């Protein structure tokens, strides 16, 4: 395998693994947070506004780790610096 093949294959496989593993953790965390928030709203419907707002902010923070993984995998596929370097060397 030439270096161009290796870089292409490794980039694609790594992008898939990145988004797959990176979405598992935040998904579990968001599910747990949502379950707790629903329980809290069921117990205290008067506090629904505060709970919902805190839930949204918390979900956004949890979700940002998944977004980082997405950005990394998108960079690997669409704007890979090593790929561009190899292409410029080849031709």
């Amino acid at each position, binding site marked *: 395998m030439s270096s161009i093949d290796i870089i292409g294959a490794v980039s694609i496989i790594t992008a898939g693994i990145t988004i797959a593993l990176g979405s598992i953790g935040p998904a579990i965390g968001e599910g747990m947070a949502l379950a707790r928030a629903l329980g809290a709203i069921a117990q205290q419907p008067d506090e629904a*506004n505060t709970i919902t707002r805190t839930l949204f*902010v918390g979900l956004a923070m949890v*979700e940002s780790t998944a*977004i*980082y993984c*997405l*950005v990394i995998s*998108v*960079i690997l596929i669409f704007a890979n610096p090593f790929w561009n370097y190899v292409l410029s060397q080849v031709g």
Partner: protein
Amino acid sequence: MDITPDTIIIFQWNGIQINATIFYTWVVMALLIFISWLATRNLTVGPKINRWQNFLEVIVGYIRQQVREITQQNPDPFIPFLGTLFLFISISNLLAIIPGYQPPTGSLSTTSALAICVFFAIPIFGIAKKGGLAYFKHYLEPSIFMAPFNVIGDFSRTLALAVRLFGNVMSGTLIVGVLLIITPLFVPIIMQVLGLLIGQIQAYIFTVLATVYIASATRVENKLEKNEQKEGSKEDE
């Protein structure tokens, strides 16, 4: 496929290139200024108000109420900054329903600029409220050994603000682009609607996070409340 509107050149003049990010930022700015000018042309306190004033009063009143609930303070000093942030991000995500429009928030340059504004606004509001010494003292809490981590936290939350907004908006347009290849009928429209919803939620979250950071910097602590505040400030990080 472009992952950022920075590479699309709208027009160039004497070597100055105006790309899609700058152009559509100007469009959003012009729209916001025009609507504000239209609504505040003939303001009145009488019972008969025109519909533009009513429309703007609803928005400003709702933002004030939200900021007051989050900061537990008088919202007036923060409203010009936070309200502009929310309206700018919200309008630039909402205009994605117009064909050919590229949301400027889908570029890392725009979101970094907004996050850097928040980065500098936090100490400015904090020092204006508490004074320089009291503001910088919170870096030494809970102990002096935590000071480097507090400084790192300041930078990492700025980075997180920028990348979160960029990632969400960029992924919205990217998913539509990918779906156009796989299932060009109907499905991209549904994802576009979801993208609009995500855009509004992200505008809300960006503003709420900026509000929370500013609120934690401007909170005046009493001796009695100090133990409660310490537990509360851990949750902010």
